[in-house]
């Protein structure tokens, strides 16, 4: 750190030649080139990336009320066999969603209503 150090007594610094730019900016390097070179040189973008809002895993079904009933072992087993069969259809891609116990109850109810309608009740 020696050599052409300016003297501190040489305080008359001439700034008159420095003025705001009047001309248009010179042709610029395309920003994508700047980004590429910077990225390759280990000077990446540090701007925060907005995290996409997570898609809800479960669509709202409105099934919020609990049904608690005593049934026979046989009816219980049969009910779960049907659920398992539906799950197998989902696994093989035959149906597009995984059914819930509530949905099976609702479908059973719809079947009963159809039956009652047919019987004219």
């Amino acid at each position, binding site marked *: 750190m020696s050599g052409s150090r300016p003297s501190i007594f040489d305080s008359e610094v001439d700034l008159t030649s420095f003025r705001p730019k009047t001309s248009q900016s010179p042709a610029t*390097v395309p920003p994508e080139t700047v980004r590429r070179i910077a990225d390759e040189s280990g000077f990446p973008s540090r701007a925060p990336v907005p995290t996409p809002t997570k898609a809800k895993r479960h669509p709202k079904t409105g099934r919020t009320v609990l049904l608690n009933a005593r049934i026979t072992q046989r009816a219980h087993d049969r009910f779960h066999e049907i659920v398992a069969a539906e799950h197998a259809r989902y696994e093989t891609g035959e149906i597009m969603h995984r059914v819930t116990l509530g949905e099976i109850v609702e479908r059973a109810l719809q079947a009963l209503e159809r039956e009652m309608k047919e019987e004219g009740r």
Partner: protein
Amino acid sequence: MPTISFASSKGGAGKSTSAVLLATELAQRGTTVTIIDADPNQPVLRWSRKPGKPEPLTVIGGVSEETLIDVIDDTARATAFVIVDLEGTASVMVAHAMTRSDLVIIPTKGSELDGIEAVKVIQFIGRQERAYNRKIPYAVLFTQTNPAVRPRTLKSLEADMLKQRIPVLGTALHERDAYRAIFSFGGTLSGLKPDLVRNIPAAIGNAREFMAEVVTMLTRQTEPMPQAEVA
């Protein structure tokens, strides 16, 4: 007219301090200056909100990677000097600022670790120069040096840089309480109260030397001559 960027891939190298010292020394001579505070921590913007900022000096904060170039171009048409204080990290912001700079100053402390970070920025400048086929004038500024003693590590770093023909500013910014004080009290070195801060005249002299050397470099628009001797 000139745009001067302060770049370092490491925090605490003295970018904001040297940017504010250069800007205030220029503005006190009546010329118009804008500091673009591109550091997300906005240290210069915080300084500017304290009393004592010279009238011809404007500070702009809140720039992003997308807006930096436009902000530099707009301010270059409004004020004589544009000074960009970048974040102390290797980011694309540094690259954007460099494409618009008439001079890049790389402040570094005189330690091996800091020197390595300075070299990283210098290599990045070289890569950009080759890619854009355009010269990006730059110089290393040693900061937080001891005015009385020059440690061997610093001497060895300087010798290394000279060997590589890396331009080093002849003026080093010494470790001065006054440089910290302007960030505490706001304003300029000459506005500090001597009963609160030690050795203000020495700090002013050092800051003036730095400003004068930068102005000389800009006037010549050439790289400074590598120093002839390393004591």
